[in-house]
């Protein structure tokens, strides 16, 4: 069956089996391996991408069901040689990136959070992180990177 997508601004089209997952198409056909697959049950969040303006677990979407959609993956957040975004820089400076495996999903998750809530509180960041697991950092650095300290909220 046909799956037509716009991925990071580029139109692509593939012949897919109904059972193929959007995450698999992105990784195997488009070659954008930044999106990861890691948990079977759509809990870990390493597969998070933006689909039609909303973040989703791309391992939990059938590719054929996503046909006609616009996708942004982590590679599309800041194109190859462009500078990192403020969010990415903040995560790096706080050293919220250890093994790096959760990082793409985390970036996509928090990108949506900070777009909707530009100055999230620590609690808002923690709640948002329900969608993406990290086993290395304990989340402390992530919250440090993204949350606005209570006293600084404007």
């Amino acid at each position, binding site marked *: 069956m046909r799956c037509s997508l716009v991925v990071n601004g580029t139109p692509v089209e593939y012949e897919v*089996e109904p*059972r*193929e997952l959007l995450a698999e198409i992105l*990784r*195997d056909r488009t070659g*954008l*391996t*930044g*999106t*990861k*697959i*890691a*948990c*079977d*049950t759509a*809990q*870990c969040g*390493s597969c998070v991408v933006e689909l039609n303006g909303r973040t989703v677990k791309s391992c939990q979407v059938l590719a054929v069901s996503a046909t006609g959609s616009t996708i942004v*993956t*982590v*590679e599309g*957040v*800041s194109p*190859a040689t462009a500078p*990192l975004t403020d969010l*990415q820089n903040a*995560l*790096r*400076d706080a*050293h*919220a*990136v*250890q*093994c*790096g*495996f*959760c*990082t*793409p999903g985390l*970036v996509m998750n928090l990108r949506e959070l900070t777009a909707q809530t530009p100055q999230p509180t620590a609690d808002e*960041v*923690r*709640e948002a*992180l*329900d969608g993406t*697991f*990290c*086993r*290395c*950092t*304990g*989340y*402390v*650095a*992530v*919250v440090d990177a993204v949350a606005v300290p209570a006293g600084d909220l404007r």
Partner: protein
Amino acid sequence: MTGVLGQRVTPRESEAFLRGTARFTADLTPPGTVRLHLLLSEHAHARIVSIDTAAAAAMPGVLAVVTGADIADKLMPLPCIWIPGGTESHFPPHPYGLPGGGPALAIDRVRFIGEPVVAVVAETERQARDAAEAVVVHYEPLPVVTRARDAVAPGAPQLHDAVPGNLNAHWTCGDAASTDTALAEAEVVVELDLINQRTINNPLEPRASLGEYDPATGHYTLHTTTQGPHNHRFLLAALVLGIPLAKLRVVATNVGGSFGTKGYLYPDMALVLFLAARLGRPVKWVDSRNGLMRSTVQGRDHDYKITLGGTREGRITALRVTSYANLGAYPSTIGPGVATALMGRSLTGPYAIPSAFCEVYVAFTNVVPLGAQRGSGRSEATYATERAVDVFARRIGLDPAQVRLANMVTPDRMPYDNGMGWTYDSGDYAKALQLAMRHADYDGLEQRRANARERGRLLGLGIASYVAICGVGPSTRMSQEGMLGGTWESANIRVQPSGEVILTIGSASTGQSHETTFAQIAADTLAIPVELVTVLHSDTESAPYGQGTYGSRSYSVGGPAVLQAALEVREKMVKVVAHAFGVGTDDVQVSDGTFSTADGAHSMAFSDAAIAVWYGWNLPEGVTPALDVTTMFDPPDFNYPFGSHIVEVEIDEHTGELELLRYIAVNDAGVIGNPLVVDRQVEGSIVHGLGQVLMEEARFDAEGNLLTDDLRSYPMPRATDVPPLVLDWTESPTPHNALGAKGAGEIATVPPAAAVSNAILDALAGYGIEHLGMPVTQEKIWRALRDARAGSPAPAAVGATATATSAEEER
């Protein structure tokens, strides 16, 4: 020195991770790659009667369907290289006489659910998986045993012909006679039956292996998720595949977390190489989460009794532990050592205990093989000892902090032989605890407790003090411990004609930011910007020497090797520069990328010196035109980071709901190279440790099914579970390496189970509840409170009974 060592340098590795361009093993797909799917055993213990692969082999895209019998004469069993030292032990066999583990594919018997039985290779993963459905395996089920204690009991099902009574070893350390005497004479004796439950590390990245074979050269390449590529190369080539070592290259690209699990040999590693050669195509295998949870080594799993004896004034005089350790169905690469020495020798913790003894019955059972889990052995030891110390303090009516302080080894006794096999190197244990107590406002505890009471809340504070053996280790000593391998580390520095430096290390990063931290050592010594140092690692071709990353050894064993190499390079360059200046070597100083004389008359940039050596013009006598130094560092002994953690909790006495108010962690890892990296590792370690005490458990049913086999049933800490953390440090350099550095990567996973348990039990102390087993759930707390109010004080949940008896009463 540039002073960059010791600075909070932002890791350079982060950018590629943030962009999503960093490659992990599953991201690699060379042209022509085919996919391997492993059909796993559905029975925990069974004879394989027959395997019918004909239908599967005929399915679309299928290139091979292979059973254990097909390759029995081609692949040897995966070896185990850690024999519990100093005692009789029994292992399944290996053709070369060393301990064997399991075969890559089960041959006539399966011994755990999750053991690979059939290998299916097809053009795509879907085709391989579909074909696996068509394989028919006839099993004849055998009786199953899942608990270590049951496995060594008479009448238990026998797993291995070569292992009578399923007993791998009865390992001991310490002095049984003096300990038993001391316990018999003690004024107060405390005894606890504890379970340190099995847990699953669950790094985020599932394991993956990619095997390639080049028929033109006969050369194999394995890309795999490993924290020890050199070990895997040696073991796979020499002891599994039987191919020349020179023909195998092992590479770990980026590895997404490991925490111990990816340091082991697994069947897929051998199979992808074997099949790549047979099929003439690269063969790739990627695990699922469910696969990982069912077949990657699991951790902890001690069923143990701790007996502590002491005086009524609070002196600990004796400590004895008997444990049943569960190795699972096969000995993993270093499983037996994890279950014995790392736990047993660590039991005295920071205390000067005159008599101590530990025995571990190491047993095979029909569950997933055991391996290291972050803080392995030390965490299990600390849990037992720190719980016992708290129960002891309460029994004699003394403050738990004071009891600890009074028993701690004092700095003037260093180096301190703990009587169990470790010799502590340096440290002021009491100072760390006192610092933690200040952060915890220990003096205000009773007031806070009273305030909480008014709100219907039970407030509790728990302490866990630990000493963690790290920096594995002195090779000769490790051989005595039973390790079949070296545990040194190496570094190589090559200065390029441009002045750039290539540093090659033997460690493998699985998230520890090695590329940054080790660059700092070299840059600091050579007085050049850290950006000029490129770090190579995790590829046995470009980094030929190494022992891998585990046991918190990279910085404290690998780091000194880097330092030594940098010093030798610097010394050679100074010689060349001095000769060019026409001065003595003592007159040349190095700073800010420049060699100069004190009077300023001469100066030469580092890069100019580098190219001068390259050209070979006007070199002093005996100096060759190459700046290339390889060093090896075999530490004289282990090193011993330590610390004290304090946790404060509140419990709703009506519902059992638990809130962690604050977590204070004072640690000491000697001289730290990159405090930013280490601080963040400590935070991650603490949160990982909270998982075991609050929510994690690998549960099996009586048939050996893993009930917690995906993330729906295996909770792990989330951001909303993390309490406010306060980190602080003391610094006690180790004398065992020139950096003064101790291990740090896993140390903070050692105390959380004990600290949080102690806090919860402190909160419940008023009800006479003496112990609750892990994970300490809301319902366990509620039930214990309810039973206590009803007048029947705990025994609380499974595996947690505490009896504190006074020896006097017994007489």
